């Protein structure tokens, strides 16, 4: 469906995306995770031809993605990180504009606009100028807009950034409904609970490279499904264990050795994996990548 082959993007001397190869399958809900500056947005922008790869290829449905590829663009819906609605227009007009750009006939366009305004619960405010809307409402218009042309592939770049927990959950609900209709979704986020709630499979990026790939469960198992956290002098460190028993044994050992720092044991979250990997020294990331590549080969 979406194939990235050795994708690299350099800005002057800085490498934003470094030899990224990835295969996203049809109908998958894929999460691209990573800290700020990991190269997630650049990857999405390259997918949408807004940024040009320095090297490597992007293949969608077996065709090379280029800036002048209208047929491929018609298959993709984009919810960008930056709210890029026309502020002077109303939600209805923004959706109308999008529908026209995608060549949807008038009657169908009108029906689709009503349907989507209802879907994102903005019927009541469809004719107010977008400028006055709150961040969450603008996000909802963005999502509705991306869906206007019924894309098979949906790219969501940090769709819930800066939103309150209620609105965030509302948007998760919307997005989850889409994937159940069989759309392929690529989501970037640095909210790990978001990835855990939504994605079948995640890829972890750090400094432009893909350092982990798998289902959230696989990633947790690989790192250690249980974590013992030690609070020492205001700093919290996690130690990962394959079983609860191993974690308990470690805690007892600490106790016997006379450590008095507060300790706790719990199940590993995706966030722990993320922090474990992104905080690891570069050599460790290199070796992780190497193991992953070996696994892929075998």
């Amino acid at each position, binding site marked *: 469906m979406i194939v990235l082959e050795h994708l690299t993007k350099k800005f002057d001397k800085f490498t934003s995306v470094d030899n990224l190869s990835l295969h996203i399958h049809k109908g998958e809900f894929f999460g691209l995770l990573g800290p700020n500056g990991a190269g997630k947005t650049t990857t999405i922008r390259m997918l*949408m031809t807004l940024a040009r790869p320095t090297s490597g290829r992007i293949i969608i449905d077996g065709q090379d993605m280029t800036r002048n590829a*209208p047929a491929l*663009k018609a298959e993709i819906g984009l919810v960008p990180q930056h709210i*890029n609605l*026309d*502020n002077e*227009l109303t939600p209805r007009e923004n959706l109308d504009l999008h529908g026209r*750009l*995608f060549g949807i006939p008038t009657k169908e366009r009108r029906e689709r606009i009503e349907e989507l305004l209802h879907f994102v619960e903005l019927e009541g405010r469809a004719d107010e100028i977008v400028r006055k809307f709150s961040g969450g409402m603008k996000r909802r218009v963005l999502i509705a807009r991306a869906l206007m042309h019924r894309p098979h592939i949906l790219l969501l770049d940090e769709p819930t950034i800066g939103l309150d927990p209620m609105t965030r959950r509302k948007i998760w609900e919307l997005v989850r409904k889409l994937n159940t209709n069989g759309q392929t979704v690529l989501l970037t986020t640095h909210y790990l609970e978001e990835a855990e709630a939504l994605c079948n499979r995640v890829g972890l990026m750090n400094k432009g490279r893909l350092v982990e790939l798998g289902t959230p469960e696989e990633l947790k198992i690989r790192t250690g499904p249980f974590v013992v956290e030690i609070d020492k002098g205001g700093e919290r460190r996690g130690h990962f264990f394959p079983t609860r028993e191993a974690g308990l044994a470690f805690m007892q050992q600490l106790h016997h050795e006379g450590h008095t720092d507060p300790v706790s044991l719990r199940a590993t979250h995706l966030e722990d994996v993320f922090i474990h990997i992104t905080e690891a020294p570069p050599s460790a990331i290199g070796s992780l990548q190497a193991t992953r590549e070996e696994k892929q080969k075998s």
Partner: protein
Amino acid sequence: MSKATTLSLWNGVQTILWQEYLLFERRFWRNMASTMVTPLLYLIAFGFGLGRGIRFEGTSYLEFVIPGIVALTTMNGSFNAVATPVNIARMYDKTFEEYLTAPISMLAITSGRILAGALRGLFSGTMMLVLTLLFGVHLKITPLFFLMLFLNCLLFAGFGFWAALTIQSHSDVTKFNSFVINPMSFLCGTFFSLQSIPGPLALFLKILPLTHTTTGLRAIASGQGVPWWNLTALAFFASLFFLLSLRACYQVED
């Protein structure tokens, strides 16, 4: 070009024109006021203020200066209808990405935006002409006069689009205005005849696009026949900026 590509080109251009028209309507008075104020001041100061009594190149100065003012109005109108909004759409609002990610060709984006800008410029120019007619100035306004004006509009809308896509910060739009558009407003035979300018400088000024518009419009308005040379030069500049714009549209990246 296949039938499908032609259809999608038309669809893209039409959509951009529709959007621009919506905004034009919504900001009508604001736009109108800001685009008309400068040319009106010129008209009052140079035209009615000192022009009524002065004879110049065989006509009244007022009749001499009006084609110049109309030319600079359309230049400013078209350039600014494209350069500023497109630059903001590209660098700040990111609304330009809505075009780039839509299934319309770069040719459609370029043609649509330039055409929309040119129509805005033509509108300002027409308003200006209507005003001067109300003041009882006699000029021969023929279809050819409008064709020339429209070429001028296309040219500067193209220049604006190219500038908007290639500059790296919004303050550079102001630089284009200060160092390119404003000097042309004054020097390209708009307020005075280039015959009074020393040789080499006059030669340079005669190459500039706006000079072709002012001399061409003046020739048409005073019934001196078809200014083929000026028309050709304008068509050349308009095509040049169109092609530069199209290339910029393929290359732009933020």
